[in-house]
C-alpha cells in the first residue's frame, strides 16, 4: 500500500466493508443452500457489531495527528478477529427463526432480506471506492 494514497479518507473503511460483506455473502448463501437440511442452524455475522467495530477504529484515527490518513486499527470482537492486515471471521449460529418439525431453524424471508441488504451494502462500498479511485486518477492526470 502506498502511504497517503490508498489509506486516505474513506478507502480503508470501504476496504474493510467490502471484506465483511464479501464474507457475509458466503454465509448467507450457505444458509439458503441448507434451507431443507434437517437439524441445520443458520450462521451469520452481525453487521451492527461490525459497524460499531469500524466506527471505533474511525474514531481512534480521528484522534491521531493525521485524522484523514492512515490505516484503520480495528480491535478484535467475538465474530471478527484482526490478524495483522487481514480479518478472521467467526460466524455465530442464529436462533431467531421458528424451529420447524425437521429441527431446521430457517426463516427464508429474513435470510432473503439479509441477502438483499448485504448485496446493496457491497455494491455501495464498491461504487464509493471506485469514486475514490476516479478522484485519484483525475489527480494523476491533472485534467478534468
Amino acid at each position, binding site marked *: 500500500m502506498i502511504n497517503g494514497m490508498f489509506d486516505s479518507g474513506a478507502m480503508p473503511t470501504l476496504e474493510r466493508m467490502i471484506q465483511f460483506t464479501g464474507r457475509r455473502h458466503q454465509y448467507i448463501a450457505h444458509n439458503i*443452500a441448507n434451507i431443507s437440511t434437517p437439524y441445520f442452524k443458520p450462521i451469520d455475522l452481525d453487521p451492527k457489531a461490525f459497524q460499531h467495530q469500524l466506527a471505533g477504529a474511525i474514531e481512534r484515527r480521528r484522534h491521531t495527528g493525521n485524522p484523514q490518513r492512515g490505516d484503520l486499527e480495528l480491535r478484535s470482537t467475538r465474530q471478527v478477529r484482526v490478524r495483522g492486515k487481514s480479518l478472521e471471521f467467526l460466524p455465530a449460529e442464529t436462533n431467531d427463526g421458528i424451529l420447524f418439525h425437521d429441527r431446521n431453524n430457517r426463516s427464508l424471508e429474513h435470510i432473503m432480506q439479509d441477502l438483499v441488504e448485504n448485496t446493496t451494502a457491497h455494491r455501495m462500498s464498491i461504487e464509493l471506492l*471506485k469514486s475514490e479511485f476516479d478522484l485519484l486518477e483525475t489527480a494523476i492526470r491533472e485534467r478534468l
Partner: protein
Amino acid sequence: MFGTLDTTTSALVAQRTRSEVIAANMANSNAIQDENGENNPFRRRLAIFSTGDPATGSKTGVHVREIAMDPSEFQYRYMPDHPLAAKDGPHAGYVAFPNIDPMMEQVDMMEAARAYEANIMVAEATKSMIQTSLRLIA
C-alpha cells in the same frame, strides 16, 4: 466470492436430486408388483440432506447424504378379486399399494422448486457482486 458459487451449485444439485426422487415416487405411486410377480409395492424414497459439500471438500454448502426408504406402512385396499390380493393372513383379500400420498409429493416438489429458485437468486446476487467488484479494475 467464487466459493459462494460452489455453495449455491451444491444446493442446486441437491434440490434437483430431491426433485428426481419425488418424480420417481410419483411415477411409481401405483407400482404394486415386483420383478417376481409378487405384491411387493414400491416403497417411498426420501432424499436426506446434510451440510457440507464433499464434491469440493468445503464445509459450506449441502449434499444428499442418502436416499432413504420411508418405513411407514403400505396402503391396503380391499380388492378380493384382484389377482394380487393376499390369499390368507391378516391382510386376506387386500392388495398392498405404495406408501405414497400424491398430495404430499406435490407439496415436497413445490418446496424443492422454491428452494431451487431461492438458490438461483443467490447465484444472481453473487454474479452481480462479482461484476461490481470487477468494475474496480476495469
